């Protein structure tokens, strides 16, 4: 098994006066990384720089120790990217579209690769169908297939499950998990459940900065979640810094779930949602 390493060092990007990325440092190796952050946190900017769609103002990116600017097109050869789009409005069939992208990725004999990928993403039976006539989920699967055409070492996925139903979402998650052993997968999303089950590491971003990059377990250990039937005002008077996660009405009683640095009520197990709220809320 080959080990891939992507090192992002002091990456900065400014749009006018807005600091989109502020000295981002990351070290990524084989596995799935969930990139979480609010809107405008800088996730897309980071992905755009990693896909060479944007140039950073400062900082460098190294793949296995070599600057990607020196690598040039050989860096793009090991890159797979799935943009956040369901707008595929080409008049091509699924198969033709994959042939088209294969030509852009300079794959000499694309037929067996395309056939294998179509089976993998369960689109083989729909290979002759026009892209325009596909459902959102099918389009996402086609986009995954195109990203995998060159057997990439770095796979960047931007909101891969957007617009999918729970079953499609599960299928896609399983697919991503099945291909994660020999590559770096960076998955940017708002949907926490997407990364909850498959990501080995979670990257939390806020206002262009990396707040945390750690395993789910270690992040959860830092967040204490409690549940209580006391009303919110009482809870706040006991600890003004608590963060309310949710409130549920059960058996004529209001139960409040919250994050607190001092123990109040019953301690419950922490989820990734709680972590997200704790860091970014």
């Amino acid at each position, binding site marked *: 098994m080959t080990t891939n390493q992507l090192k992002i060092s002091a990456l900065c990007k400014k749009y006018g006066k807005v600091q989109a990325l502020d000295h981002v440092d990351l070290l990524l190796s084989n596995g799935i990384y969930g990139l979480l952050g609010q809107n405008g946190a800088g996730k897309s900017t980071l992905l755009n720089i990693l896909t*060479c769609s944007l140039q950073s103002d400062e900082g460098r990116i190294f793949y296995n120790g070599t600057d990607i600017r020196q690598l040039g*097109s050989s860096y*793009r050869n090991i*890159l797979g990217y799935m943009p956040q789009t369901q707008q595929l*409005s080409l*008049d091509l069939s699924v198969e033709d579209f994959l042939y*088209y992208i294969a030509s*852009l990725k300079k794959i000499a004999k694309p037929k067996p690769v395309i056939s294998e990928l179509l089976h993998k993403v369960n689109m083989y039976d729909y290979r002759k169908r026009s892209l325009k006539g596909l459902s959102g989920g099918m389009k996402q699967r086609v986009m995954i297939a195109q990203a995998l055409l*060159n057997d990439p070492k770095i796979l960047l996925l931007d909101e891969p499950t957007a617009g999918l139903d729970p079953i499609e979402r599960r299928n896609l998650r399983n697919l991503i998990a099945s291909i994660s052993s020999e590559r770096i997968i960076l998955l940017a999303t708002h949907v926490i459940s997407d990364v909850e089950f498959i990501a080995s590491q979670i990257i939390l971003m806020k206002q262009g900065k990396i707040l945390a990059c750690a395993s789910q377990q270690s992040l959860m250990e830092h967040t204490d979640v409690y549940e209580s039937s006391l009303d919110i005002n009482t809870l706040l008077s006991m600890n003004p810094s608590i963060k309310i996660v949710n409130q549920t009405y059960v058996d004529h009683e209001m139960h409040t779930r919250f994050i607190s640095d001092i123990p109040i009520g019953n301690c419950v197990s922490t989820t990734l949602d709680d972590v997200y709220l704790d860091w970014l809320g």
Partner: protein
Amino acid sequence: MLMVRAELTRLFKNRSLILLIITFFCLSIFQCIYVSSEEDVRSLSNDIPVLETTDFSQSDDTYSYAKALGLSEPAAFRAGTNEKYTTVYTELLQNTNDKLGSVLFSSERNQMELKKQKAILEDLLSEPFIFMNDILFTQYTSFNMYWSFIYLFIGLYCTYLLIQQDTDSALFPLFNSCSTSSRSLLLSKIISILFTVTMLYLIKTGIDLLYFQINGLSLSAPFQMLNSIDIISYTLPLGTYYTLLTASSFISVLLLLMFFIFLYSLTKSSTLSFFVSIALIIIEMLLYRFLSIASSFAILKQCNIYTLLTMDQLSDQIIYVFHRIIPLNYLIPVLCLLLLPVFTILSIVFFHKAVYRKSSKDKHIFLHSRHFTLYQLKEIFIQRKALLILLVVFAYCFYDMNHYKVVKNNREASFESFVQQYYGPVNDELIERIKTDRREIHHASERSDQIVSKMIENDGNITEEESLELYELESLRTHKDDIDEIFMEVQSLKEMNVKYYADNKSLLLLVEKKNPTGTMIHVLFILIPLICIIFSTMSAFYQENTYRYVFCTKTGETKYLIRQWMHYFVIALILTGIVFGLFYLKITRYYAYHFMNQTINQSLGIHSKLHMSTWLLLYVLNFFSVFAFTITSAMALSRKLGTIAGTITLTGIIILLCIVPNGLFLLLRYDFLDHLLKYIFVLAFLVIVTVALAIHQLVK
């Protein structure tokens, strides 16, 4: 190679392009049929075997002899031309020989030119004259100007399609992550587009050459066979001329393609770039037409893409380049050679940047806004770029309005400006006025004759007073024939009890009596942009699923569709205003208009006692019924068809409905009241179809 193949697959998977190509071939076949069916072409084809076998040299008057043999007019003329050519070239040869011996032309350069001319003339005289159907050739090649526009359009459309799809499908970020560079990407696109255009070009040229072969046209014959005895142009064989002719349009396609990509790279809007590229051609055309040759900018007439498209002009240029080394004539090839790489480099550089910049679409629907109409109009005119279409229509009409002036000769223009002062009620006062003016002009003419004869007797010497008087009299004298004609006409009008001396020519021009297809062209100039606008907005409305939000709002489906229909009708009125408004200006610019005071029997010769204003109202209503039909059908079809496919289909349907006997065209003819029953039937049919379509759409 793989990428080019992939881009080609993308292009040919597009239904609208396939439709365009089918239309292209249909037009090609239509061209062959149309040219072959021309009366002159057919008669000349039949008579050529006789021309080839008959010896005309024995006859003194070749033309009369040919007519006596029962040959048609064009054939007899060509028999006569044979003799004329021989005479003219013999005379020219004699003249050249004289010049060669003259001291005046003793410079080395002159001698060289003359010797070359002599050799060509001798060569030409030694060859037997070939009879061929040159009308067929000229008619056929005259279509080439339109063909070059079709190549242009297809080239531009292919580029537009590829780029538009890339933008709509947000593929640019994906391209960046692929190992292919943006330059290779652009080049593969350009090569695939050029391949498509080249393929069409080769097929079309193949069809042309086959057609010429079948009709016995010798392409190796010299250019002078085209009924021209231009000394400069004779050495160019017809085949070379034709190849250069068609190849030039190909160069223009390349230029425009590069310009389009360059523009797209700067603006990020493929639709805008598409329309601006088309507008560029129109602007160049206007520049070419209206720029005076004496102007200091006359060079723009030569440095003009439109020159490349108007083949006749280009052929002249090529011929000049072949025969006379004048720097100006190098401008066209220099322009191509310079501009092409410039645009190519600019396109590649800027396209590279364009790929790296993200574009986003702004989709806001202010359905609950009370400014709904304003929003819709803004969407149609600004966001969907309909304003550009309006500008193009306006530019054409403006061109047409000015072009008319060029067509008229000085004599006609002088008469028309003179006659205007007499338009009005036909009464004794008018006749008296004309009589007085006539007497004055005749007197001036006589006096002028006297002075001129005096001048001849005195060897050109007259007094200064007489010279001034002659100058003044001459301006009056020019209207001598005009006033006689006006006097006769007004006299006859009085006898016929016609109330007004009016300019009926203007009205006939308005209704295009002489050229009924003219009306159809004008109507199509309103309908095609209208259809284009409807499809571009309504197709997007359905295809982008906007209708799902709209139909569940307070506005509702029925109300929304009715409002949209009204907006389109307003646009139709604006277009009518532009087309016919400028047309009306064109007429009033050269003719006075008093026809509104007459009956249509007096002015148009229609068998009806209706007053002109009533007729005009009916005529306008006919137009409106056609607009209503077009708008309703376009709105219905837009559920299924995209902008281009829809525009082509509906325009085809309307043209078909117009050209079938007793079809829609009956409504657009000025004499529709002469066929009252048919007219009522067509109108009823149109109204029923429109209402049925509307009900079907609203119920659906």
